[in-house]
């Protein structure tokens, strides 16, 4: 299968990609054909996600709720002291991350935003990436966007990073020399070694993955993918992941958030 998509195929997709430079790559999935990983789940796994008392991701959400109210750091402040009830103040927030952070001149994802708040407002020690506590806060805040449509900000400053993310998505990598798009745009719905290839939307993160038997972040999943391609993954927190997340959230725009989702 040719990697380079003809311009003719790309033209309809290009009409949707206003402002995005046309990079030779894969045809975008038409918006109406997009499918959450939820739709590919078996009956029992769907039931697991649908029932808050059966979804192990909710255990993390409860931990996050407790952390939200815990005073911490030299400032002795809890999240609730500034943000109040997360159900109101955090509603829809996760759906519009990553967002541009002027102090850094680049976008940050939700985990990074939480870490910035901890450092600057709570004067607390940073929570390591993929730590139980950071995942818990991310899951708790993420859940406040459950049901809301993925809403990447209409911010021109994000464009170069979204383009970089898209380039990474279309670039072949690893010993297997595959790009993300070759599986997730061109072959979604087909089988790879007995598993269904999803379209790979980030609308449920952090999520409980059966393979991990724990909750995990989008970065963990991206690292898994890179390992699967036999490429050396970037370190946690690498800007490459955030750029890719900016693109993936844009690619999933309008799809409902499902945090904390359950996936195989």
């Amino acid at each position, binding site marked *: 299968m040719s990697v380079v998509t003809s311009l003719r195929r790309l033209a309809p997709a290009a009409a949707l990609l206003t402002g995005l430079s046309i990079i030779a790559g894969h045809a975008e999935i038409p918006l109406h054909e997009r499918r959450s990983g939820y739709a590919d789940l078996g009956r029992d796994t769907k039931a697991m996600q649908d029932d808050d008392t059966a979804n192990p991701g909710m255990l993390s959400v409860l931990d996050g709720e407790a952390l939200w109210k815990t005073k911490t750091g030299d400032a002795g402040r809890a999240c609730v002291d500034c943000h109040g009830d997360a159900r109101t103040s955090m509603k829809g927030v996760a759906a519009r991350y990553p967002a541009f952070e002027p102090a850094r001149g680049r976008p940050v994802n939700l985990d990074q935003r939480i870490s910035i708040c901890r450092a600057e407002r709570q004067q607390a020690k940073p929570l390591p990436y993929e730590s139980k506590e950071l995942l818990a806060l991310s899951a708790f805040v993420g859940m406040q966007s459950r049901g809301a449509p993925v809403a990447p900000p209409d911010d021109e400053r994000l464009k170069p990073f979204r383009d970089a993310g898209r380039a990474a998505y279309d670039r072949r990598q690893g010993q297997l020399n595959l790009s993300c798009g070759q599986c997730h745009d061109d072959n979604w719905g087909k089988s790879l070694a007995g598993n269904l290839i999803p379209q790979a939307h980030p609308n449920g993160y952090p999520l409980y993955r059966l*393979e991990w038997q724990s909750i995990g972040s989008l970065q963990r999943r991206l690292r898994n993918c890179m390992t699967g391609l036999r490429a050396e993954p970037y370190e946690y927190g690498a800007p490459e992941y955030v750029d890719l997340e900016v693109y993936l959230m844009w690619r999933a725009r309008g799809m409902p958030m499902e945090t904390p989702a359950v996936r195989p």
Partner: protein
Amino acid sequence: MTDTKRLYRANRRQVLAGATVLAGLGLPALQTARAQLQANPAALALAIRKVAGDAEVKTGRVKLDVPPLSENGNSVALTVTVDSAMTPTDYVKSIHVFAEKNPQSNVISVQLGPRAGQPTIQTRMRLADTQDIIAIAELSDGTFWRDVRSVVVTLGACLEDPV
């Protein structure tokens, strides 16, 4: 299976993905090193014997609900229900679940009683490989009943690094 064959317990995480069906991309066929778990009938028989003793375990009255194809062997949903009136004199005493090819045959054993109301349990189990699952119920009259179902377990296509 002969006595000379050893159980090969590969770390699942070290197993490479199987051959891909994406032949159109011109991928080389990847080597598969699947854990070749064999049924261990002796261990299974012993585990069942510990529960049922010498009693005959009849097929029927138990309904075991497992997905025929699991998405991930780490977490496979299972429901067991038993056809019983659940009266104080005719009820389900216990339910036992076994996995034929797991390193250890027992999955779960539950004690019920007439207060259970409905002899149905649900849980999630780990399966090391494609295998049969056996659910055995002991009734208050001392009889044992069972159901057997097969579950196909595949390995994930893009495996994470080992622990």
